[in-house]
């Protein structure tokens, strides 16, 4: 265990962090996900030592660093708007950290060239930050932090300010840097897409507190509440009442429709079902899947290569089809179809007074 954050609370003006606890292992790529305003940046800044927590503690390898100064922590920060010092050249920006530790000029120069080669920005060294593109500035900011060989690298929405193409390249770049340097990384983002390729584990934040921590697949398949499910963009959230039925749970949803779920929960629930787990057919679909609901197509929403189909089965159910299979099936508005999905694809979240 490398970084240990325990019950950290911090109030800044109108905003407050409450009971922030999580652990990050050495070498891990940890992603904190949450909507804008959840307090993700404040968490990063508290880890970096910019804000002192009101209560709680932060440890590194068992050593309490809650009260130590930012410069004593050796934790690197890259902000989403990079914060390159505009009055210094790229070379002086990257060498800034080493200069603080009174390292010889020639040694600094060598280190700067080394890290600049690694990030492929050697030709930028004599330029000023104001003349660089977003992607270039980001790599300079990464170099400035990485040159000190930080034990943790904190990335604040690193993809946010980049266009789609650059974003894709940057994601690969971050993955490469992480592999190459073995640095522990904590990244914050509100983009779920950023996570799957990079993250070893994720934490979900909401209103200044962490609601769920786990491996991406674990959080994705078993969201702890409707907020997480909605935030992760899971297609279907079905409200209903659950009752045991043999080894399964029978959920009575709106319109008296019942669906079966592999769960033991009872009482008022929200069931989640990923749109891609719903099979659409014109005739009843015989398979081991326990749920097969007849319905009418009310809407088709095309996005890039897929079409989102909204089927009225008593409540609106969202399914995802490729354009091709949609055409083959001949599905259009008002088509009568069957929606089939496995009981194990339905995840049940108990609702307690929400």
């Amino acid at each position, binding site marked *: 265990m490398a970084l240990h954050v325990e019950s950290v609370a911090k109030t800044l003006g109108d905003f407050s962090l409450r009971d922030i606890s999580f652990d990050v292992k050495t070498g891990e790529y940890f992603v904190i996900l949450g909507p804008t305003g959840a307090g993700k940046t404040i968490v990063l800044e508290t880890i970096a030592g910019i804000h002192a927590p009101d209560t709680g503690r932060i440890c590194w390898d068992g050593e309490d660093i809650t009260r130590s*100064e930012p410069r004593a922590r050796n*934790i690197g920060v890259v902000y989403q708007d990079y914060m390159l010092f505009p*009055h210094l050249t790229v070379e002086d920006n990257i060498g800034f950290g080493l200069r603080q*530790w009174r390292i010889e000029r020639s040694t600094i120069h060598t280190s700067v060239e080394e890290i600049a080669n690694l990030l492929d920005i050697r030709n930028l060294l004599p330029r000023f930050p104001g003349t660089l593109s977003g992607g270039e500035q980001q790599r300079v900011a990464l170099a400035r932090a990485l040159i000190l060989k930080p034990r943790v690298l904190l990335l604040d929405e690193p993809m946010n300010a980049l266009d789609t193409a650059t974003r894709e390249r940057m994601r690969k770049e971050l993955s490469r840097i992480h592999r190459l340097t073995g640095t522990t990384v904590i990244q914050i983002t509100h983009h779920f897409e950023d996570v799957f390729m990079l993250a070893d584990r994720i934490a979900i934040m909401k209103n200044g507190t962490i609601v769920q921590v786990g491996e991406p697949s674990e959080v994705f398949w078993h969201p702890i509440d409707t907020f997480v499910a909605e935030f992760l963009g899971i297609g279907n959230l079905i409200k209903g009442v659950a009752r045991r039925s043999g080894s399964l749970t029978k959920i009575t949803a709106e319109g008296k429709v019942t669906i079966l779920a592999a769960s033991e929960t009872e009482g008022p629930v929200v069931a989640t079902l990923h749109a891609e787990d719903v099979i659409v057919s014109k005739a009843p679909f015989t398979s081991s899947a326990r749920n097969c609901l007849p319905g009418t197509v009310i809407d088709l929403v095309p996005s890039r290569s897929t079409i989102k189909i909204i089927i009225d089965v008593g409540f609106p159910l969202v399914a995802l089809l490729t354009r091709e299979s949609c055409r083959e099936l001949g599905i259009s508005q008002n088509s009568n179809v069957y929606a089939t999905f496995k009981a194990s694809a339905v995840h049940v979240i108990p609702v307690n007074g929400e």
Partner: protein
Amino acid sequence: MRRFSLSLAFFIFLVILIVLIRLIIYPPLPALATSLASPEIRFAIVLSLVTSTVSTAICVALAIPASYALARYNFPLKKLVNLVLTIPLALPPLVAGIALLIFFGTTAWGKALDSLGFAVVFTPLGIVVAEVFVNLPYMIRILKSSYAAINPRYENVAKTLGCTDTGAFLQVTLPLARPGLIAGTTITWAKSMGEFGAVLMLAGATTMRTETLPIALYLNLSTGDLDLAVAASVILILISLAALFVVEHFSDEAHVF
């Protein structure tokens, strides 16, 4: 509308230009040169330069840290402190001057300073004190808005890279505030060169002792020596123009007002 507003703007432009030029060409050129070379005006030039430079240096030294506190930190009574710091901006300099005169002339504080050899009332030292008192709020205001426009995250990054708080300020924030610092210094210096009311009250108007350029203008005008008065004002006009030029040059980057 276009024609009306344009001609009005042009009219105002002409009035200002004519009034100033008429002043400069009032004495014949040789007379102006003689006046500028007279011992009294030369004394006034030197005294003005010295006192303005010293008072500006004091303003800069005090404003650099003080305005940083106002821009970055939250503290009790911050609003009140801000308000009080703004009062001298709105106060007629004469009133500021008489307040200073009462403070240094009648309180134990002033007398203690006097007995220590720092006589303020009716001395050249008083000129510096009056100029600092009147101009420091300008300097603080300009620098404060300069700092406020600099994202504090620059300092955060600098600290994670190994800077102390002071180091981050000196290596990052202060260099980034440079345009505001230059503009503020220039305005403070130019205002000190022209300061009259507060100086008159606290330092008095003693020929060849507390006679700055504006005081020289006033003294010579009251004794009817127009040539000397005009000579003093010509120099003041040149100083204003130079200051204006410097401020205009940096005002794109500096948030002056």
